[in-house]
Every structure is written in C-alpha cells, then in structure tokens.
C-alpha cells in the first residue's frame, strides 16, 4: 500500500486552478457593488429600450467604463511584462486633441472620410508614442516607470499645444458615433471595447504571445536564456497600450464632441492600474488575466457611478472610493483571508494543541 502514492492525483493535481477560479473574487465583488446599488435604487438593474437605444444604469456603467476597459486592457499586457505605462492618460488627451483638431479644421467636418483620417491620424501618432516608450524600455533599458513618466508629463503639454490650451468643439455625426453612437440598440463604444477585448484575448491565448509575455514578466533572466526575443515583445506591449489609450481617447472626446487637452484622461492611468490589479494581475509581472481586468475596470467604474447615485458629497467621494478599493484589495489578498480565517479557527484548537502535546512530552522524557 505504501508503494502507491498517498497523494490523490484524481483531485485535479497540484496547484491546478480551475480557469474560472481567478475571476471568482473580482466577480463577487462586482456583484456585491451592484447589489449594494440596488438596495438604494430599486430600478438600478432595469434596462429599457427607448428610441431603439438601450438605457439604464447598467448600460451607463458599460458605456462610461468602455474607455477605462480599453486603457486597462493595454495596461494589463504591460504590467504582465513587469512594466507599467504611466503615459496612457496623456495619450488619451493627445488622441482626442489630434482627431478633433483635424476635424475642426477640415473642409468637410461632417464627412466619413474626415472622421476616418482623424482616427488614422490619432492611431498613427499613438503608434509612434508606443514605439518611443518601447524603445526607451527595451532598447535603452530605461525603467518603465521613468520611461513612461517622460511621456506622461510631456504628452500632456503636447496635447495642450495641439488644442492651443482651448477646448476644441466639433460637430461631426460620424465622429460622434465612436463614443456616443448606438449600433443594434447597443452603445457603439461598448461594442468596440468588447471587440477589442475579445481580439486581444484571442490573439494572446491562441498564439504563443500570452505565454511568452508571462514568461518575460515572470522570469526575465530565464526568458533570455531560453531564447525569447524580449525586446520585440516589450515594444509590442507598449504599442498595444498606446493604441488602446488612443481609442479610449477617441471615445471620450467623441462622446462629448470636444477635446480638452488639460483634463481628458486625467488620472486614468491610476484607475487603469487599479483595474488591472483588482482583476488579479500582479504588479510583479507574470500571469495576466484579460477577463479579470475587464471585471476590475467595471468594478472601478461601478464605484464611480455609486458615488454619484448614493449622492456622496463630492468632497468625501475620493475618500469613499479609496476606502472601497482598500477593502476590495484586502478581500482579494490570500494572506489577509488566511489570517482572518486562521484567527477564527485557532480560537478553539490552540488549547487542543497544548493539551495534546503534554502527554507526548512525558512519553519522550520517560
């Protein structure tokens, strides 16, 4: 009998986590937040169709959360490589400013062609910005936080230069579609974000990209010795991050039909980092979860919405948000959960341990 392994491999093996397990806590937290809202507003879950468009608090959360989901999506890949991208907020502002600037000076601001060139312009510049970040990090070996801090600060200035310090207002129906339009009753921004999330998840998991990114983030030295071309991967994730931020910037400026170099995307990098972490991707790199990030972004967005719906006074709203974030992080921490559980468990068995030990002591000494 003893020759047979005592360990049960039937139970699913060591450390194997069911795929959904990692998403369990973020999902529960999101659910709790939504139910909390329901307690205050009984129509919180109701979704109505009006003029062929969906309306409701849940739809609002999705629509206003779409840019954050996108920024957090790019951030997820960057963080998985042990990096961080602080420049996304500035990229959001630059993209909006470029697009609106182009449309406002175009001959036919309302045409589809103008909209397309505006989008292409914003994405092209974002591509260049992402490459610059990638080059600083992988080519020159600058620490990601420093490398992207440069663009975070300088980019905000660039956005203001583009808008001349003003708020550029545009009237373009095709452009309005990106952030404020509807398609098949759904907000177009939500569909766009969902499409990009699905695409990213598909590409990273169906190709070897996801695994190689996790390898580079999980153990850079080993990844080099195994022959992974980390440089290219790093450049790629910063480009993806910048492109995601640019699309988010287009959504934001399109939604309000204007570009504000000062305030567009301000502090969104922090919300995005928070969303990634709440979604279960560690800042130390390695394993990442696109699904977790989406849930994380929705949690952050729901929180912002809750602050309004509860009527929390503006001066305490940030404190309230911070408090909830801390609770969320604690609930997710296995160490914290273990401590709480252990405390509860040890109240009884501690005495048992002591009692059980005494006879053995005698036995050994006898």
């Amino acid at each position, binding site marked *: 009998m*003893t*020759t*047979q*392994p*005592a*360990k*049960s*491999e039937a*139970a*699913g*093996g*060591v*450390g*194997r986590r069911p795929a959904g397990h990692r998403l369990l806590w973020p999902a529960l937290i999101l659910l709790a937040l939504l139910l909390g809202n329901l307690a205050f507003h009984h129509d919180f879950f109701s979704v109505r169709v009006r003029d062929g468009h969906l309306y409701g608090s849940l739809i609002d959360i999705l629509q206003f959360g779409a840019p954050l989901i996108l920024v957090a999506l790019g951030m997820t890949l960057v963080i998985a490589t042990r990096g961080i991208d602080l420049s996304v907020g500035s990229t959001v502002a630059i993209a909006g400013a470029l697009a609106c600037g182009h449309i406002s000076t175009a001959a036919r601001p309302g045409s589809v062609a103008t909209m397309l060139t505006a989008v292409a312009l914003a994405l092209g510049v974002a591509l260049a910005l992402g490459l610059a970040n990638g080059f600083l990090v992988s080519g020159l070996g600058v620490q990601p936080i420093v490398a992207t801090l440069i663009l975070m600060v300088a980019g905000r200035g660039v956005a203001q230069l583009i808008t001349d310090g003003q708020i550029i207002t545009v009237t373009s129906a095709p452009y309005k579609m990106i952030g404020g339009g509807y398609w098949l009753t759904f907000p177009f921004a939500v569909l766009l974000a969902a499409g990009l999330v699905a695409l990213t998840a598909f590409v990273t998991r*169906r*190709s*070897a*990209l996801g*695994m*190689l990114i*996790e*390898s580079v983030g*999980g*153990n850079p*030295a*080993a*990844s*080099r*010795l*195994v*022959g*992974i*071309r980390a440089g290219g*991967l790093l450049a790629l994730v910063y480009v993806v991050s910048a492109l995601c931020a640019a699309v988010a910037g287009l959504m934001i400026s399109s939604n309000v039909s204007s570009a504000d170099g000062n305030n567009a995307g301000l502090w969104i990098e922090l919300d995005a980092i928070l969303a990634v972490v709440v979604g279960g991707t560690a800042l130390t790199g*390695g*394993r990442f979860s696109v699904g977790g990030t989406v849930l994380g972004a929705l949690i952050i967005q729901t929180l912002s919405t809750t602050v309004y719906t509860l009527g929390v006074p503006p001066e305490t709203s940030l404190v309230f948000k911070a408090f909830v974030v801390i609770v969320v992080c604690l609930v997710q921490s296995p160490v914290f959960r*273990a401590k709480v559980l*252990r405390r509860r468990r*040890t109240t009884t068995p*501690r005495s048992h*341990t*002591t009692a*059980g*030990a*005494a006879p*053995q*002591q005698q036995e*050994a*000494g006898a």
Partner: protein
Amino acid sequence: MASPSTTPRPTDAGGPRPVLEAQGIRKQFPGVLALDGVALRLFPGEVHALMGENGAGKSTLIKVLTGVHPADGGTLVVDGRPHAFADPLQAQQAGISTVYQEVNLCPNISVAENILIGREPRRFGLIHWSAMRQRAAELLTELDLDLDVTSLLDSHSLAVQQLVAIVRAVDVSAKVLVLDEPTSSLDREEVAQLFTLVRRLRDRGVAILFVTHFIDQVFDLCDRVTVLRNGQLEGEYPIGELTPVTLVQRMIGGELATLDQLSGRSHEGAAVRAAGVPFLRARQLTRTGSIEPYDLDIHAGEVIGLAGLLGSGRTEVARLLFGADGADAGEVSIEGEKVVLRTPRHAIARGIAFCSENRKSEGLVGELTVRENIILALQAARGWTRPLARATQDELARHWIEALDIRPADPEAQVRHLSGGNQQKVLLARWLLTAPRLLILDEPTRGIDIGAKAEIQKLVARLAGEGTSVLFISAELEEVLRLSHRIAVLRDHRMVATLANDDTVTPERLLTTIATGTDS
C-alpha cells in the same frame, strides 16, 4: 561507517529530551496530501538526516515546522513547550535556524548585508557599517571562505550563495539548525568544510537536521535518519542499523534496479569520435574577469566533462559557448564554419542548449505550468506567431513527464509548487526535447534523488551514443568520470589541462590536477 562521536546517543530509556518533537504532522495542498502523519524527533547534539525521494515531502516538512506553511494537523514541541509558528521569524526566535532548499537571499545587496540583515551591528541607532563588514568576514572565515563582503551577492556563483545562506543561518544562536540540501552544488572541499562546521555545532549541543541526496554524506555525518516516503513516515533509524543499500530500499520502497547499471565508463569509440571536424571548436575564447582564453573542441557524440573547484570558471566556459555572456575575444566555429554567438538566441539557432545550474533564477518560470515550462524553449525558437498546437504540447509534456518520472505527473501544475528535484527534471526536459546538437548541462543532477540521477546519467550516455555532443559540468567527480570521454580541468579561471578519460584517470589523479593545475 557511522563516525563514532562523543555526544551521548539518545536512547529510548532515559536519554536526553528531544529539543524538537513533531507528531502526526499533516499538510494538504490542493490535490496533494504532501504530509500524512509524519513524526520527527531531534535531540541536542545530533546530526539527523531527513531522507526520501524527490517529492517525498522533506522540504514541506521543514516548511511546516518552521512556519512557512501552516500545518493541517499535528503537534510540535520545541524545548518542552508546544509551538505553532505562524511565520519563519517566530521559528527563528524559538531557536530554529533554517536554510531552505531554494536560496532566498537578496541578490542585489552585499554579502555582508545578506549575512547580517535583521541584526546589523548598530551604533547610535544607525547601522555600524565597518563593524558589520568585519563581523561578516569573521563568520565567513569559519567556513574558510575568502569573499569580498562588500560585493553584491548575485556576482557570486550559486554555490557561494548557498554558503552565504548557511553562514547567515549559523550566526543566529540556534538550538536547531535545519539545512535543506545544503551540499547540492558544493565541491568536496566546501562539503568537507561544511561538515567540520556542522560537527563543531553538534559538539556544542546544536541539533542539526540535514537533507541530502548523497547517501555517502549521510553515513559520513549523521547519527540518526528519518525516512519519508510519499508523504508518510517510513521510519526512524540509528545510522548503525542501516547500510547504503537498506537506506535506499527504505526510501524507494523496493530494490533500486537502475543504480550503477551504467558501466564504469562510457567511452567506447571515443577515439573514432574525436577524429574529423569537431562540432564546435573554440579558439582563445575569453571574457575579461571571468575566464582566461581557452581552446576547446567538442566532437559529435562526445561528452566533455568540466572539472575544477568552486569558482574555477566552469560555468563561465559554458556561458561563453551559449552566448549567455559575450566573449571579448577569440573565435568559435561550428562544423568548420565561423560563427559569432552574441546572444543565447544565436546559440540556440545553431543547435546549442544550455541548462543553467540555477533553476530558480535562470531556469524556470515559476508561475507557468509544467507543460508551459517544458515547451518554452521550443516555442521561443518558433516565435509567438507560430504556436505549438495544444495537442502537441500535451503530447510533449506527457512524454517527458513520463520519461523523467516527474511527480506529480500533472502537466498543468504550477512549476513553483513542485519539489526541488522535480523542478530540476522539468528544466532538463525543456532542453532535451529541443534535440540539440550540443547539450550544455551545468549541474544537471543537482537536487535529484539517487534513482533519477542514474536515469539521467543513462540518458546522457544514450544521447551521446546517438551523436549529441555534451558539455557536462558537475561538482561530483564520480559523475564526471563516469560520463565523460574527455575532461577539461579548470583552475583559477584558466583551462589548465584536457585529459582523455581512460583507465589511467583516477579520481586522485583528477583531484591532483585540479589542485595543482598540472597533470602529473
């Protein structure tokens, strides 16, 4: 066999009281019952071996006793008082000092800081740096180690890091010293020094728990043995009741069929192989500060052993050939064609594989699964756009898990949850499956149990028989002698001799060459 010692032997009737006594220890990991009712007794002034196959639960037992993992059951009595340590610090404060299997020091601070961190000598509330350096240097001399204590820890080889970890543990005035495979990458010299230190501590009354896969070290040093098998207690024996053969039988629960089936040496046809254009030829290859210019020819199907003391430059020779470090001068040709091996990628593209000695920091990606770690080199060579089909991945993982007997046999387990020896096997599998032309193995059997070690040696011999060239680095001379066709000897960062491994090469002759730098 068992070295006679002056310390009183614990007897069941009226002997000294155990300083540490654990009973009925249980530890359940998700899907694995790692420990099932294990008991352990340590008496003051004894060296106690904890033995068992890879994955038997040795490290887990140590971690549970010292508060790294909470136990799921059982009792622990230290010094007559029941304890349940919530973290390793508490264990240390209770007088249990531990060197865990995977060195966990801080790579980017100095050796001195690593040794004394947490108990730095202070003056006026500030760290007294010069006193700290002096104290650290003193402690190192106890192990006859001559290191610059201000140098960064990660500028040293794994073996030195292992010694630093031991020095750090020894400094704490401990009642119990736990050493989990401290000798896995040490040479004879360091092992001897470590043993002297351990005996000194034992004579001072410290209880030492010692884990190793080297059977002879157990008989050399230990007074009693606890054997684990598959997470269960097999038994506790005075060393005098065991022989190497019976000990191994207790560990594996049967006869060891494969041990020493490998004929003394495997150099049939060495002369034939050594003729013609070598697969790899290095001429005056050098890197300033790490290795003096060396020449090396490796023919197809040839096993070249690298021998030398700790820090003699064995690993450095290998790293240049793999492009892990860039060479400053010299040239390399592969099958007669000049090549520049600037990065590992270049070397891999030429069919070279390098299995690093440091599986934790340079080898495995702990968060990835066994399957992902096994296919990583192959996938990296293909690039991210050409993923291996999942069915192929599963097939490869299954094949190598079986071939190397990786336990648990679960391709989706996270590698960091595997036992040390099983992790080492995963690393080997990764490179073996790339079917390299030249396989560089740096301490490939580090931490691997006695049965699996014989398997791996056979595998290396078989690969060479099939035409793969192997560069074999090991601190274990017997292993080098058994497998190599030729042995290159290194001393003080210089390749001082290359010996054809025929019957005239004895361990003694090799040791003399290593020590003097000349072949007598």
